[in-house]
C-alpha cells in the first residue's frame, strides 16, 4: 500500500487540535510557530514568548511592524487584548516554575526514554547556540515535539539512545511526525495514530526504537 506523508502545515494543524482551552503554550522556532495559524478561535489559548510576551497574536499588517514587538523567533507580532509584557526573569520563571502547560519544540533526535536533542549537532566547527531550549525542555508541564520521522538521508530521528548532545533528559511527552503521533510512556513509545496506508511494520522499520501499536483499529 502507498501512503502520503503529512506536510509541515498538516503536522502543525494536527498539534493544534490537542491544545486545550486555557492552555499557556510556548511554540518553538520553525515548524512549531506554524501551529498558531491553526489554533481554534473559539478557545482562549495564551501564547508565551521567551522575550517577555504572554498572549501575543498574529503578525501585524504590512507597514505596522514594530521593531520592539517581536517574538522569540525575532518575527514581528501583535498583542491580543489582555496580553502582557514582562522581563526575562519572570519569563523563565513561567517555564522553570512549571506554570507553562505545553512547549512545542523541534528535534534532531528523540530517544525512547524521552531524552531530547535539539540544540547542537556536536560538529566540532559548529557554533553552539542554545537559547531557551533547555529551559523549555525541563520547565514546561508537557513537551510536544514536531519533527520529520526520518532525516533527509532517511535515518531515524526516533532512536533507542541519542547520538547528538542532549537538551533535556526524560522530558518529551508526545511526538508528532509526518507519519504518526507517539506518546512517550514508561512502558515505551506508543503509536496513537499513523497516516493512512502505512502499516505498523513499515513505521517500525523507519524508527530506531521499539514501538508499541496503540492505534485504534
Amino acid at each position: 500500500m502507498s501512503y502520503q506523508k503529512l506536510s509541515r502545515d498538516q503536522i502543525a494543524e494536527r498539534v493544534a487540535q490537542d491544545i486545550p482551552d486555557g492552555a499557556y503554550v510556548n511554540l518553538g522556532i520553525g515548524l512549531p510557530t506554524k501551529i498558531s495559524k491553526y489554533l481554534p478561535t473559539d478557545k482562549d489559548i495564551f501564547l508565551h514568548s521567551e522575550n517577555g510576551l504572554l498572549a501575543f497574536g498574529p503578525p501585524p499588517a504590512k507597514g505596522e511592524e514594530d521593531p520592539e514587538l517581536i517574538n522569540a523567533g525575532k518575527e514581528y507580532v501583535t498583542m491580543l487584548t489582555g496580553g502582557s509584557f514582562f522581563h526575562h526573569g519572570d519569563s523563565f520563571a513561567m517555564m522553570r516554575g512549571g506554570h507553562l502547560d505545553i512547549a512545542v519544540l523541534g528535534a534532531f533526535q528523540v530517544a525512547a526514554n524521552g531524552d531530547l536533542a535539539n540544540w547542537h549537532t556536536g560538529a566540532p566547527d559548529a557554533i553552539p547556540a542554545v537559547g531557551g531550549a533547555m529551559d523549555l525542555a525541563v520547565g514546561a508541564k508537557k513537551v510536544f515535539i514536531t519533527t520529520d520521522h526520518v532525516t533527509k538521508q532517511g535515518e531515524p530521528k526516533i532512536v533507542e539512545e541519542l547520538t547528538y548532545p542532549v537538551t533535556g533528559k526524560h522530558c518529551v511527552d508526545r511526538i508528532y511526525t509526518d507519519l504518526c503521533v507517539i506518546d512517550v510512556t514508561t512502558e515505551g513509545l506508543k503509536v496513537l495514530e499513523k497516516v493512512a496506508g502505512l502499516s505498523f511494520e513499515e513505521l517500525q522499520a523507519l524508527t530506531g526504537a521499539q514501538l508499541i501499536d496503540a492505534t485504534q483499529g
Partner: protein
Amino acid sequence: MIDKSATSLTEVLSHIKDGATIMIGGFGTAGQPAELIDGLIELGVKDLVIVNNNAGNGDYGLAKLLKSGAVRKIICSFPRQSDSWVFDELYHAGKIELELVPQGNLACRIQAAGMGLGAMFTPTGFGTLLADGKETRHIDGKDYVLEYPIKADFALIKAHQGDRWGNLVYNKSARNFGPIMAMAADVTIAQVSEVVELGQLDPEHIITPGIFVQHVVAVDAANGNGE
C-alpha cells in the same frame, strides 16, 4: 537634589575602563541600547567581557562593538543567527571567547547577582554538555546544577521613559533583560527616549525603581536604533 539624568552620553560612559564586564540589554535588536554601544565604541576601551542574550546582529550595535575588537569574551545564550556574521568570523578565527548559557540560566544568574545570592541550583542543563564538570544535587526528587551569579561593572540598557531619580518604564518586548541587568551591575546606565518630570511616572507602573539606576540619558528617538 538628586538628578541622575545626564545630557552627555560620553561623560557617563567615561568611567568604563579596559577589562570591564558590561551587561548590554536587548533581545536581538529589540531593547538594544544602540547609542550607548556607539558611545562605548568611541570610548575605545578594550578587553571587555560582554553579557547579552545574543552576539550581535548585522553590522550595527553589539555587532559593531565586536567588530571593533573591544570584546575579549561574550556570555550569551544564542550567538548563532542568520545575521551574526561578525561574531561567526571572530569565533572561527579564535578571536573571541564564548561562554554559552541557557537563556533561563542566564536570566537567573543575572537575577542571583542582583538579589545578592551566592549561587543557585537550576534544573536547566542537567545532564547536558553545558553542565559538564559542575556540581549537581538531587533535591526533592529532581536533579539540579549549581550555577553562580553573573555580576557586572556596568549595565547598558534601553528603556522608554525615565525620571531624574532613575525610575524607568519600558516599551513592549524591548524590556527583556533590562530590569534584571539593572539590578546586577554596579553602575546602570539607561538610555531612554524621554526624560520626564518626577511624578509623571505612575508608581504602580514603574518597572525599574530608581535605586537600581545610576544614570539616565535621553537619546533622540528620531535617530532611533540605526536600522
